[in-house]
C-alpha cells in the first residue's frame, strides 16, 4: 500500500482556544462515506451501508500529586457492510488513505462472494429510517487543557487523601475528555451524523488497617462538564467508599433480603436488556425467551427505553442502521412489551425493527417512592451489595452466582462491611421477587435505575 498525497496530516488538537477541534470536518467525513458507498456499488453490491467515525481526546492521570500519564487520543475508522443479494460481507479499517478505502471495500465484497445467502439479510425498510431528527444536545466541547486537567486531578486526589487518615495510598485521579463525530450513510439514500462529547473525572484510593488494604473509587461522567459532580466531592466520595470497606467480614451461609445499590442494580437491568435483545431471542439463548406479554416483573414495575433524552449518555437520534429511535415502554405493569431489535432480528422473528441496532439506549427504571434510607428501613435486616465481581450470570438459564461485597444491615442501619461472599439465585425468580426501586437514580450510564430490593437470595460464605 502506498501513502496517498491526499492523506490528511493530523492537526494538533487545539487546547488553547478552549475548543476541542476535530481534525476531520463533517464534509470530509460525509464525502468519505459517499465514496465508500459508490466504490461498493461500482463493484456490484446491491446494497451497502458505511460508517465513518473520528474522535479526539485527552486523558490525564495524577498520582500522589504528580502527573502520571498524559495520553492524547485521536481515532478514526471506516466500516462498511455490503450485500450482494442476500449475501453479506463486512470490513473496517483505521487507515484513511484512498487506497485503504478501496482495499476495505474490496475485502467486504470478497467476503460477500463466499458467505451464504441468508433469507433474512438486508437493509432496514426505508420507511423506518429517520428522515429528520432533533438536536439531542450531545456536543459540549470542554476545552480543558492538559495544565487545567492536571490541576483538576490534583484537586480531586488531594481532597480524597485529606478526607481520612486511613487513606494511605492512591491509584490516582484522572480527567478524561473526548469529542467524537460519526456519519452513517447507505445506498438507500440515508446520510446522517452528529457530534458528541463525553467527559469524566475519577479517583481511586487505597486505605489500610490492621486487617489489610481496601480500594474503592468514585467518578462522574457527563456530556457537558457543567453537569459534573464537584471535583472535591469525587475525592471525598472515593475516600469514604474506600474507608468504609475496612474490616470486612464474611457472612455465614444463609438466605436473606438483598438490596442492590444503584450502580449494582444497573447490572440486573443489564441482564434484562440482554435477555430481550434480538440475537438472544432468535438464538433461543435467553432466560426470557418469547416472553413478550408475560409478567416478568411485579405489577408495579415500569421500564422504558428513552433514546431521545437530551444530553443523556445513551442518547441517539437514529440507530446503527439509520432507523429512527423512539422513547417506548419495555415493561409496563410488570409485563414485557417488546424486544430490542435491529432489522435483521426483526425479520428473523417476524416483527418490525425497534431501532435497536447498537443496543438499547437509556433504559430507565421508574423509581418508586422511597429513597435509599427508606429502602434500607424496608429491608430491615439483610445484605446491601455495593460491589459485584466476576461474570457468573448464565443468560440462557438465568442462573446467577456472583462474588459480592457490601454491608450487613440490621434495623435499617449498616452494621459492618462484608466481603468474600457470593450471592446466588435465578434472574427470572429475582425479577419476580423485586420489592421496590429507590428514588436514588444513577444516570451515569446507559441504564438508569435506583437501588433495587430483592426479597431473598442465597448468600454463601463461611
Amino acid at each position, binding site marked *: 500500500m502506498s*501513502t496517498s498525497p491526499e492523506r490528511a*496530516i493530523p492537526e*494538533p488538537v487545539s487546547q488553547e482556544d478552549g475548543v476541542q477541534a476535530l481534525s476531520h470536518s463533517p464534509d470530509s467525513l460525509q464525502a468519505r462515506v459517499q465514496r465508500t458507498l459508490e466504490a461498493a456499488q461500482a463493484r456490484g453490491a446491491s446494497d451497502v451501508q458505511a460508517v465513518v467515525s473520528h474522535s479526539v481526546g485527552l486523558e490525564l492521570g495524577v498520582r500522589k500529586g*504528580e502527573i*502520571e*500519564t*498524559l*495520553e*492524547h*487520543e*485521536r*481515532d478514526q475508522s471506516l466500516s462498511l457492510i455490503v450485500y450482494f443479494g442476500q449475501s*453479506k*460481507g*463486512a*470490513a*473496517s479499517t*483505521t*487507515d*484513511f488513505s484512498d487506497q*485503504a478505502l478501496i482495499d476495505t471495500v474490496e*475485502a467486504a465484497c470478497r*467476503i460477500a462472494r*463466499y*458467505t*451464504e*445467502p*441468508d433469507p433474512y*439479510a438486508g437493509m432496514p425498510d426505508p420507511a423506518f429510517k429517520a428522515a429528520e431528527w432533533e438536536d439531542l444536545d450531545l456536543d459540549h466541547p470542554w476545552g480543558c487543557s492538559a495544565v487545567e486537567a492536571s490541576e483538576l486531578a490534583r484537586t480531586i486526589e488531594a481532597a480524597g487523601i485529606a478526607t481520612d487518615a486511613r487513606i494511605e495510598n492512591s*491509584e490516582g485521579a484522572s480527567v478524561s475528555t473526548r469529542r467524537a463525530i460519526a456519519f452513517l450513510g447507505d445506498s438507500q439514500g440515508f446520510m446522517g451524523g452528529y457530534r458528541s462529547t463525553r467527559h469524566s473525572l475519577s479517583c481511586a484510593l*487505597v486505605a489500610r488497617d490492621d486487617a*489489610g*488494604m481496601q*480500594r474503592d473509587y468514585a467518578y462522574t461522567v457527563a456530556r457537558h462538564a457543567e453537569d459534573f459532580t464537584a471535583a472535591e466531592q469525587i475525592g471525598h466520595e472515593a475516600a469514604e467508599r474506600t474507608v468504609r*470497606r475496612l474490616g*470486612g467480614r464474611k457472612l455465614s*451461609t*444463609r438466605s436473606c433480603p438483598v438490596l442492590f445499590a444503584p450502580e449494582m442494580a444497573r447490572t440486573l437491568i443489564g441482564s434484562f436488556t440482554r435477555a430481550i435483545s434480538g440475537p438472544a431471542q432468535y*438464538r*433461543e439463548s435467553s432466560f426470557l*425467551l418469547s416472553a413478550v406479554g408475560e409478567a416478568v416483573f411485579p405489577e408495579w414495575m415500569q421500564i422504558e427505553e428513552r433514546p431521545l433524552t437530551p444530553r443523556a449518555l445513551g442518547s441517539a437520534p437514529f440507530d446503527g442502521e439509520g432507523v429512527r429511535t423512539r422513547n417506548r415502554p419495555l415493561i409496563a405493569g410488570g409485563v414485557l412489551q417488546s424486544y430490542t431489535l435491529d432489522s435483521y432480528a426483526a425479520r428473523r422473528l417476524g416483527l418490525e425493527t425497534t431501532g435497536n441496532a447498537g443496543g438499547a439506549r437509556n433504559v430507565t427504571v421508574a423509581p418508586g417512592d422511597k429513597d435509599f434510607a427508606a429502602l434500607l428501613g424496608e429491608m430491615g435486616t439483610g445484605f446491601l451489595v455495593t460491589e459485584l*465481581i*466476576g*461474570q*457468573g450470570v448464565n443468560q*440462557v*438459564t438465568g442462573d446467577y*452466582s*456472583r*462474588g459480592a*461485597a457490601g454491608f450487613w444491615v440490621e434495623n435499617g442501619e449498616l452494621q459492618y462491611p462484608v*466481603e*468474600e461472599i*457470593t*450471592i*446466588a439465585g435465578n434472574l427470572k425468580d429475582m425479577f419476580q421477587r423485586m420489592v421496590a426501586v429507590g428514588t436514588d437514580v444513577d444516570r451515569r450510564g446507559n441504564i438508569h435505575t435506583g437501588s433495587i430490593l430483592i426479597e431473598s437470595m*442465597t448468600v*454463601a*460464605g*463461611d
Partner: protein
Amino acid sequence: MIDSLAQQTLLDPAGLGDSELSTLLGTTFGRGIDGGDCYFQFSSQERWSLEDGIVKSASFNIERGVGIRVVRGEQTGFAYSDDIAMPAMLEAAKTARSIADAGQSGRIAVASRAPSRPVLYAPDNPLDSLDEQAKIDLLKEVDAVARGADPRVTQVMCSLAGVHEVVLILNARGELTTDVRPLVRLNVQVIVEQGGRRESGTSGGGGRSGYRYFLEADRAAGYAREAVRQALVNLEAREAPAGTMKVVLGPGWPGVLLHEAIGHGLEGDFNRKGTSAFSGRIGEQVAAKGITIVDDGTLEGRRGSLNVDDEGNPTQQTVLIEDGVLRGYMQDEMNARLMGVHSTGNGRRESYARLPMPRMTNTYMLGGDADPEEILASVDDGLYAVNFGGGQVDITSGKFVFSASEAYRVEKGKVTYPVKGATLIGNGPDVLTRVSMIGNDMKLDTGVGTCGKEGQGVPVGVGQPTLRIDGMTVGGTQAA
C-alpha cells in the same frame, strides 16, 4: 537486520529509513528521558461466523498506526497516529514529550536487536493458511459434528477468527526489534433442549499458528463434541451447593484460578505502587509447600506466547512461586527500573493506541505427584469443578472469583451428580495455602483466554494439574 516483512509493511510505505528513524528518535527522546518507544503496528484480522447451519457473515479489519511513548521517572506521555508518516509522527512525538521539559538531543542511532532464540511461531499470515471455501467448510464440519452428536442440540454457533500482526519497536536507546505474530481461534457454542429446559455448552481453542491447526488431531470436531457434552451435562445439573467446602479443580483451564488469585497480584505496576495484596511479600510463604507457579511466554505456538514483548524484550520463564514461597513479580521496563530490577519480558499492550503495562503470558502451576483419581477419592464431601467461564480479582483486597460452568458434587470419594454453574470466591494470598494435594496431570488450556486490564485485552494462557483445595466458598443456591 530489520525483518523484511516488518520493513515492507511498516517503514517502506512511508519512506522511513535509518536517517528518518534517527531523527524521530532524536525528536522524541534524549537527555532527561528514561525510556519509551515508537511502536509501529500493522494488523489484519478476520472472523467468519456460522449460525443456523450457514456461514452468513464475516468481517475483515485492518489497523495500522504508531504509538509514541515517552517515560520520565514515574511519568508517561503518550500520543499515537493512524498515519505512519514523518510529519504525523513528529507531531505525536512533540505531544508525547510535552510531559518532559528536557531538551532534545538531535539524532539517536538505530541498531537492530538480533533475536535471542529461534522463533516460537512461524511468521506466516494465518488468514492465508486456508482458502475462503476451506474456512467455510471447516465451520460447516463443526456444525455437522455438533448437530450429529445428539438430537437435543437445537442451536450451533461457531466462529473462526485469525489475526496477522506485524510490530516494529524502536526504543529510546535506539534498539529496533520486530515480531510477526499469528493468532487463530475457533469457538463453538451449542444450545440443547430437553423437556422445555434449555442449556448451553461452549468449547474452543487456538494458538499462534495457521488455521490448519484445527484440521490436525481432530481438534475442530473435538471442540464440537466437547461443547455438546458440556451442554448435556448441564441438562442434568441440580442446584449447586452454597457454603465453604473442599473443592477439587480439574486440570487445564481451571488454572484461571492462578491467573486471578496470584497472577494479577504479582504484576509489577501494582507492587511498585504498593496497591497489591502481595506488595512487599517476596520471600514469604504464600502457598502450600510443593506449589511452583511460573509465567512462561516462551512456549512454542501457545496463545499467550511471544518472541518478544511489546517493549522488544525477549519473553522468559519467570518463577512466581517456588515451593510455596513468593519469588518474583512480572515486570515491564518502567516498573522494573523504578523497582531496581530487570524487565521480565511482560510489557504488553493491546495495540499501538494503548500504553504497555505488566501483563501475564502463559501462567501455570507445575505438576505434583498425586494421582487425580486418588485426589477425588480422598474427598468425603465437596465439589469437583472442571470447566470455568472467566474470573476477576480485586488486587488490593486480594479477593477473587472464578465461575464454574461444569461442576459435580463429590460424596464419599465418588463423583455423584452434576450441579449448576456457581461462582467460587477466595482470598488470593491464602487460597493456595489450602492446597492439600497436587495432581500429576498438569495440562495447559486449549487456547481460549483473553485477559482484561484497564480496558485492554491481550491473549493469555493458563494451566494447572488437578488440585484439592481444603476450603473455598462455593456460591450455589442450596444451603448445606
